[in-house]
């Protein structure tokens, strides 16, 4: 069983710069056809500062620390037993290529179902840009398959 003492555990915040090329790669991977997500001129023509990060991109930012899965390390989980249970985003301002985003995260809950056959870890994230503006928050729940 995952030790519930980790509820409240905060991970070390980190900063990452949004690269235009990464946004272009992400757009290709999800089949995005709107050029504001991969072409700077098209984005600017629609009034954007630069290429726009799409709605689920904060999740990718959350994986950009030196250890991409710090929760796996901290809780000594086997990555092959993890499933994604749920994901929520709330948006306050856009994220653009060239922005430097600081990601803070913590474990907000650990619980189990089905007599411990499934365990759940809920994480909360905040994303703040180079101007100190909170641009998004997210929560996600990981499901851990036991046996």
């Amino acid at each position: 069983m995952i030790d519930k003492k980790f509820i409240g555990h905060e991970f070390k915040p980190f900063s990452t710069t949004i690269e235009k090329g990464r946004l272009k790669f992400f757009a290709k991977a999800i089949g995005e056809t709107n050029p504001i997500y991969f072409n700077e001129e098209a984005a600017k023509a629609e009034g954007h500062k630069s290429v726009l990060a799409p709605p689920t991109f904060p999740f990718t930012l959350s994986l950009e620390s030196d250890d991409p899965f710090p929760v796996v390390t901290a809780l000594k989980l086997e990555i092959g037993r993890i499933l994604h249970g749920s994901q929520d985003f709330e948006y306050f301002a856009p994220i653009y290529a060239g922005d430097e985003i600081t990601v803070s995260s913590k474990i907000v809950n650990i619980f189990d179902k089905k007599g411990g056959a499934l365990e759940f870890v809920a994480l909360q994230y905040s994303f703040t840009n180079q101007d100190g503006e909170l641009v998004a928050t997210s929560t996600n729940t990981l499901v851990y398959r036991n046996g």
Partner: protein
Amino acid sequence: MTDIQIGSEIPALELAPISRYTLALFAGASGDHNPIHIDSDFAKSAGMPDVFAHGMLSMAYLGRMLTNWQPQAKLKKFSNKFAAITQLQDVITCSGKVVELLEQEGKTLARCEIQAAKASGEQTLVGEALVEV
């Protein structure tokens, strides 16, 4: 946009069948390098029949559906549960509709039920979005 009413449908987005190529690209682009999505040997050793799609790939497809419909700046909240695993060759269709109009801090928000589903109708992602009208 005044044409958004309760019952308004979000134009659906049908995707190409999920391939190993799609998953490899998404692993690299998303930074989620969990081998369970890209290495069949690893997936089988973890008790799965084969590699399977990242939940966040389908959520990104839902995001595409939403931003095809309304500018991203209108999207205030976006959430879903991952209800079923998306396997190789599944054909995913994203759809949604407005179920409620809410007044919040002088703004009108459309609460939309959204889903991703397989061709069989099985739902893979079930969630909602709040979109400013």
